[in-house]
């Protein structure tokens, strides 16, 4: 199977295989088209699986919408919507094994969902009740990295660990188009190629880094950069859940079988604001957004299923029930998040005892005792 990627390591041919139109399996209109590179990697995806992917897409969009609403209502401090990027995240994350390990930026809530992060665990960071929501070792996914690009090196290091350990687990890192300008992301590619480690670089090119269009970060397609570092790359329609899954499987398979790193550019679009604090009307051309709305990742799966007679009322209803339940759970969990105890501010700074922190903590405890006493 690896052979199918051989051509990508030769940049001369690779350039040809990455035309302006990214690789696709389901068109915006819901038509299944064939792609000789991708097809073999999803021939096991049957009707039931497509229905499950559909449910995933709908549920994570609903989670995202509900979280956005909670922020608007003042219940979350901030939320980074993934609206429009559902297929890129679901298609890739559903291709992973539980022993793989994922290092993301902060917009990858659908990836977290696929990894098994529970809905309540998505919230503490954004409600401000804790610096993170889950134990990375429970789900094989680090908590979000806010410093743009930093996590790509962590994935490279983790992958180095996998290869030292001789296991076929893979490290997968998610980052944006803007992140590709950071030194760290380029150093990660240098290290990954040089150390030949099993890491997948998954770039969601959503066309924006806050207000900056991707053209300000890169004058060539982003997927072109990796081969020059010695890392084959794939440019895939990021709104096509099936194509994304196929591309990710190719990359994972290469990694597991000792082929080293692969880079995937998933071409998608950020349909919402950068975060709930952002005002995209200042910089987004509504016509451009409209064009992308026509390529919606969920619409096309609906149409595809429908064209096969699979978009039954039962599927629609069960999916809606699942989405409703997720939204309700999100809201309930959000409001139920406990206010942290004051002295926990001193917890987990160090593993081992640290005289300075311990003194500060006990002094602050005395402070609280004294003034809480006064207040009573």
């Amino acid at each position, binding site marked *: 199977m690896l052979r199918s990627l051989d051509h990508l390591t030769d940049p001369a041919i690779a350039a040809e295989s990455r035309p302006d139109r990214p690789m696709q399996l389901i068109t915006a209109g819901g038509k299944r088209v064939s792609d000789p590179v991708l097809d073999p990697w999803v021939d096991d995806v049957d009707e039931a699986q497509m229905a499950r992917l559909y449910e995933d897409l709908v549920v994570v969009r609903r989670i995202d919408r509900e979280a956005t609403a909670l922020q608007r209502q003042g219940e979350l401090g901030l939320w980074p919507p993934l609206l429009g990027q559902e297929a890129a995240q679901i298609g890739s994350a559903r291709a992973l094994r539980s022993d793989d390990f994922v290092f993301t930026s902060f917009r990858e809530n659908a990836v977290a969902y696929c990894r098994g992060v529970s809905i309540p665990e998505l919230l503490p960071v954004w409600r401000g009740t804790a*610096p993170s929501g889950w134990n990375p070792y429970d789900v094989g996914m680090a908590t979000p990295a806010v410093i743009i690009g930093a996590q790509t090196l962590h994935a490279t290091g983790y992958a180095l660990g996998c290869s030292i350990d001789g296991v076929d687990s893979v490290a997968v890192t998610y980052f944006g188009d803007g992140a590709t300008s950071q030194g760290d992301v380029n150093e990660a590619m240098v290290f990954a190629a040089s150390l030949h480690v099993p890491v997948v670089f998954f770039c969601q090119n959503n066309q924006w880094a806050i207000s*900056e269009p991707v053209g300000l970060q890169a004058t060539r397609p982003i997927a072109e950069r990796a081969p020059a570092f010695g890392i084959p790359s794939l440019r895939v329609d990021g709104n096509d859940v099936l194509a994304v899954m196929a591309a990710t499987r190719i990359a994972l398979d290469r990694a597991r079988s000792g082929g080293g790193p692969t880079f995937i550019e998933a071409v998608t679009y950020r349909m919402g604001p950068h975060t709930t604090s952002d005002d995209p009307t200042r910089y987004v051309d509504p016509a451009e957004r409209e064009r992308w709305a026509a390529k919606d990742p969920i619409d096309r799966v609906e149409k595809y299923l429908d064209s096969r007679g699979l978009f039954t009322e039962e599927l629609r209803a069960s999916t809606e029930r699942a989405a409703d339940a997720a939204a309700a759970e999100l809201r309930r969990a959000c409001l139920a998040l406990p206010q942290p105890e*004051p002295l926990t501010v001193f917890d987990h700074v160090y593993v081992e005892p640290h005289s300075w922190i311990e003194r500060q903590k006990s002094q602050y405890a005395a402070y609280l005792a004294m003034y809480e006493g006064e207040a009573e």
Partner: protein
Amino acid sequence: MTELTLAKAINLGLRRTLESDPRVVLLGEDIGKLGGVFRVTDGLQADFGPRRVIDTPLAESGIIGTAVGLAFRGFRPVCEIQFDGFIYPGFDQIVAQVAKLHYRTQGNVRMPITIRVPFGGGIGAVEHHSESPEAYFAHTSGLRVVTCSNPQDAYSMLREAVASDDPVLFFEPKRRYWTKSDVDEDATPLPLGSARVVAPGTDVTLVAYGPLVATARDAALAALDDGISVEVIDLRSLSPVDFETVEASVRSTGRLVIAHEAQQFGGLGAEIAASITERCFFHLEAPPARVTGFDVPYPAAKLEEHFLPGLDRMLDAVDRVMGRVNSLTGWEARS
């Protein structure tokens, strides 16, 4: 004289600077159409064009390193770092290049670069958006470090920073961006390196800077109710520190409290305490007290009120240097 928010005062300072000096260029992420995430550069790209107000690729080392090259060519770059916690990828260029090039070239090359950094907490943000990294830069020879606490200073200090032939780290107290007061464009500013007594007092000197100056003034008012007269000094310049002003105050009060949001260990409070102790040892009635953020990473938003030194902790420190009952005496009794 116009009433402006602190953010708008900086915006006005940038505008006047762009108007009066063709060598000034602005660099940063999202400073163009968006006007920066805090709108501090709002409207500037529209009015001065994309060659003077430059949206850069997303890379802080790139921003600072590019500014160094511009300075080599005689420009006066003003860089915006989007949030305090994002300055570290640019740390090498700041510490090893910006700070040292004038020294390295024996005075031949100047680095009149201003690096604007919204800093500090209190806005309920996620990680990396509430930090106070000023001590790193104040410990770095070759840099000047300043911060403002009110719109008038924001305006004039920004203009002085850009006019300075030395590199200046310009820390903006982000939770005070929306503080409003009068700004007089023609006011004669204090020199950039000087502190200001913002409330006179006789018993205790309370030194603060940036976002905590307002809190310190409130604390001084509250202390007065308790019969303690607190002199509040707005430090303004963190490198150099205007020790003359602090020293004069401590010589008369005999007591010093220093407040900052940054972590305590190795923070500026230590330097001020140590330097003032060196200079005023025999005038001190009590050891200088520090009221600061704790030595933990900046915590989650719902805990930040415990991390941040507020009015009550300042008053507790005032009690401490006054020899009154305070939390430390309580602690000593317990331990």
